[in-house]
């Protein structure tokens, strides 16, 4: 009931959690900012990278490819600010699940493509093998960050915290 008392759970968790939280938030922010920035300068290539998955018509792929880098940058900025962290973490998790599904499906269909996660998408140089497993494992790592923020969205130095005017506590934010 009381919001000032730290967690009833013992141990270091209540002390460590805010720091883990801010690390997850800034880490995921960096992921989105880098991913978006690497694609934003060549939107045509971004569309090609989406099209290389061969899951949607070319014209749809180009629109997704053009919109995606900007959405990624926006997610990064929102996480950096710590605004609507739970929602942004949810959207991040959903996007990552889509990416993982896309890579897995490219893998099972035997396509030889680069995931296009951080720019340089679609094409592979001759003789270059696709690296689907590392790409999926990396995205799973990012998914863990998003999952952490989904469960514990309140982190220090965030606009969310500033808006609520409350210290970081283990409250039941909806």
């Amino acid at each position: 009931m009381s919001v000032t008392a730290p967690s009833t759970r013992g141990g270091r968790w209540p002390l460590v959690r805010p720091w883990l939280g801010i690390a997850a938030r800034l880490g995921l922010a960096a992921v989105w900012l880098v991913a978006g920035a690497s694609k934003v300068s060549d939107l045509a290539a971004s569309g090609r990278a989406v099209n290389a998955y061969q899951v949607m018509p070319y014209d749809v792929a180009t629109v997704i490819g053009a919109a995606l880098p900007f959405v990624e940058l926006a997610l990064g900025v929102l996480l950096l600010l710590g605004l609507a962290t739970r929602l942004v973490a949810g959207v991040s998790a959903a996007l990552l699940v889509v990416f993982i599904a896309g890579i897995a499906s490219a893998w099972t269909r035997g396509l030889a493509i680069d995931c296009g996660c951080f720019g340089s998408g679609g094409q592979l140089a001759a003789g270059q093998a696709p690296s689907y497993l590392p790409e999926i494992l990396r995205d799973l790592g990012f998914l863990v960050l998003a999952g952490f923020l989904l469960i514990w969205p309140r982190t220090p130095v965030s606009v969310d915290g500033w808006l609520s005017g409350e210290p970081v506590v283990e409250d039941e934010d909806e």
Partner: protein
Amino acid sequence: MSSRKGQRDAARVVREQLARERRRRRTIWVSAAAVVVLVIAGVVGWVVWSNQRSDSFTTPPGANADGTGIVTGGGPVTVDVYEDFLCPACKQFEQTSGSTLEQLVAENKATVVYHPVAYLNRFSTTQYSTRSSAASGCAAADGKYHEYAKALFAQQPPEGSAGLTDDQLIDIGTSVGLDRGSFGGCVKDETYRTWTEHVTDDASRSNVTGTPTVKVNGQQVENPTPDALTAAVAAAGK
């Protein structure tokens, strides 16, 4: 006593309910704002992309009917070559198999269509892929596409660099016998930049995901060595 405590409790419950309501509303507003930001970001991307694309394009003389590539020869089998002047593997392909293609054209066995796509703009700081492809359109206008392409590959700049300057692109043109005045003007004016975009767009649409890609009568040749090309053209010509 107990009634006052009851009042205090009731007041606290009301306060807590109000606070909870405030929190709920704030969460809703903040979430709505974040959703709006994300949607706007997506729309901005789409608008930027639409503005970058040109509606029409200028096709150089010597191109095929669709304006997607430069035609050499007139043999019965069509060989499509998708290449980017910044791509090291394309340079390698040109150096190992380029003469084979020339020979197939000379023997009137194949028609070779070169598609100079701009896939690797991210790997130069000056959009070298687009500029060199547009310049190759200028060379095609004077009937010297392949001579110019070979010279470009011979002097290929490394990936990640600034690429060659427009002046260097013009110098390479004059070295293969192009006129400095008309060719140079064409390169400087980026006359065929919209054509490069069209070529690139068409290649992407036909699921050409990498360069070089070589197709013989529409069938991709996975490893286009001289032998494989000769065999594929022979098989397709039967």
